[in-house]
């Protein structure tokens, strides 16, 4: 669906020559509109399959809140992930850091300090582990993929050691109530997501920190020559991702009223995929918070629709895979001209007199 729209746009844009809607910020807008289109399509499919449910306004409103609630924890993580990817890195350890932060925050010892102690612990552990990632990447000169992969394994191991492989139940009423409470009909978890995303947007688009992140991701050497402290900044990016993991750990602990070493399984892949279908370039230097949020919500809406239509999970994963591929294909078509794309794949021949590209 979005593929069709996107490709058509691409053709139209390039045929018509440079226009205002072809500039960078407009491109993000087009992409987000495409994702909104996907969401509408998912809604329409649901309405066709289960008209009994979708005709009930209260149910529909509540279902939207459910979709957003399920997008909340992974959404917070994706905000951090977006920063890391824009800055030219990758963080594979986010799921493991959520598990580690969550497990640490729910040990009997930590729970005895009350909700403030639990929240502080989760965030401190997340930031701490993020800083270790950052140190290894920025100063230890490890490739981000390797450093955070090592952290993924180590953090899950540490979480298993701390929890004794048990599921740790949170007995704290305040923590457990976070996921249940609503303010003006909006779940608190969704509000947390909106606040984190809002702060992330401001940080990325309205501060020097954001500009430096984009500059480093675009060309680290140029950024360094321009006087940016690339190492220090890179380290902060991973700490930021760790901070988001700590916040997400509390959100997930609250939802599940417990935590365990195997929690937040494959969140790293969900977060990376959401950022990418939201238009963040995996090579860095480009990306938006809003796009990433839409990416997360699309995945959450798919899971929800599959449950409502009673379709098996394996099909759901295949659809998610297909959406990632389509989104990246659109990205390719948009970032080069359509004719170049076609030529590269042997779909059209260059006109006589045009130098052949190799």
């Amino acid at each position, binding site marked *: 669906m979005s593929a069709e729209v996107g490709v058509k746009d691409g053709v139209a844009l390039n045929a018509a020559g440079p226009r205002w809607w072809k500039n960078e910020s407009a491109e993000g807008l087009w992409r987000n509109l495409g994702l909104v289109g996907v969401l509408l399509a998912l809604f329409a499919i649901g309405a066709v399959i*289960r008209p009994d449910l979708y005709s009930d306004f209260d149910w529909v409103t509540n279902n939207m809140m*459910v979709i957003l609630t399920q997008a909340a924890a992974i959404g917070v993580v994706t905000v951090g992930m977006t920063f890391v990817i824009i800055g030219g890195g990758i963080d594979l350890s986010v799921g493991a850091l959520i598990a580690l932060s969550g497990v640490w925050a729910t040990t009997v010892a930590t729970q005895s300090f009350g909700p403030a102690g639990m929240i502080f612990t989760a965030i401190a552990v997340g930031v701490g582990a993020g800083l270790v990632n950052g140190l290894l990447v920025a100063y230890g*000169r490890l490739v*981000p993929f390797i450093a955070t992969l090592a952290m993924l394994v180590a953090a899950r191991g540490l979480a298993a050691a701390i929890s004794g*492989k048990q599921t740790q139940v949170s007995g704290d009423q305040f923590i457990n109530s976070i996921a249940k409470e609503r303010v003006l009909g909006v779940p608190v978890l969704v509000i947390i997501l909106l606040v984190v995303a809002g702060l992330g947007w401001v940080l990325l688009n309205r501060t020097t920190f954001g500009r430096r992140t984009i500059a480093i991701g675009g060309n680290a050497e140029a950024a360094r020559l321009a006087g940016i402290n690339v190492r220090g900044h890179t380290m902060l990016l991973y700490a930021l991702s760790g901070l988001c993991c700590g916040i997400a750990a509390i959100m997930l602990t609250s*939802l599940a*009223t*417990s935590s365990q070493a195997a929690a937040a399984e494959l969140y790293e892949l969900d977060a990376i995929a959401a950022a990418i279908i939201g238009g963040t370039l995996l090579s860095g230097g480009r990306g938006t918070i809003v796009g990433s949020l839409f990416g997360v919500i699309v995945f959450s809406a798919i899971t929800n629709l599959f449950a409502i239509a009673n379709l098996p999970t394996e099909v759901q994963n295949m659809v998610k895979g297909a959406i990632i591929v389509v989104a990246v294909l659109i990205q390719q078509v948009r970032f080069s001209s359509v004719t170049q794309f076609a030529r590269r794949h042997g779909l059209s021949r260059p006109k006589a007199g045009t130098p052949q590209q190799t």
Partner: protein
Amino acid sequence: MTKHIPDASRRRLLFGGTALAAGALLTACTSNEAEPNAAQTKGADTANPNAAAGKAVTIGFSAPAADHGWIAAITNNAKAQAGAYSDVTFKQVEAGKDAAAQRAALETLIAEKPDVIVLLPHDGKELNAFGLKAMEAGIPVVNLDRAFPDALAYRLQIKGDNYGMGVAAGHYIGKALKAKGVAAPVIGEIAGMDELELTQERSAGFKAALATYGFSVTNRRAARFTADSGQKEGQNLLQALPKIDAIWNHDDDQGIGVLAAISAANRSEFFMVGGAGSKKAIEDIAADNTVLKATVTYSPSMASSAISLARLIGQGKGMSDLVELQVPKEIILASETITKENASTYLKLGF
């Protein structure tokens, strides 16, 4: 990405080492190790002639190190049960992360010539050859839970009954709904990891048992045996089914999340049956203040029984209640249904 500099290796070592040291330090500071449940083992039973100290037996033991409460309970129980016998020496080898690692670890165990080996394999099919080899070397193998396909590969097989678990849950739900007089019930199922054979067996048993009452599953979701995945699938299931009569959730650990989703949605028009028999679930059933009304067991106490039987095999004795002079070749534990009425009896078996 980052530019590499020539003298990076020393730095890498330095930072890697620091990170490792920090991790080790942290582990040392915090520990929440689960106590082995004393009641899940068989203590001194003076009335039983088999309990008296006999020939010294060395038992080798290996189980995977999965991040799941059930496997943790298996290892803890085995250790605790072995500790309860003065004539048993317990030799545990680390199973590592996969079948190949476990095979390598077991090779070293054979070389040490224990009297009996108790083994919960990563995968029964992949470790079948090891069972054969140990048996040929004259070491009896007790195969715990994950079956070897080859009958020559073990002296005793003791395992839980996944299909039977589904059947037990299906019968409980079927009977309860028949008693209520519900004609076309809405039944939800929250399965565990769908790629595992055990999940498919559980679902097949559930389906078959429900069919005897003329019922079927309305909506089935597969979670990941974790509380957060249980919460997610549970929440979606509740959305898909505005009115539910009964839910079977395969695993009590993920059930913590399912119950959280149910309580957050303020739903209580149905009842739920759990699976495995965790301590928390049994306590919830006894307290009777949630929708969880029953759970069907798949108890890790089987590890304690496996050690007891391995000892008898090592000593050449039979089970004293049976006529036979040797331990039987196969024991499949019945999946028992825990309800409010018998919860107090089963609480000691909760893990």
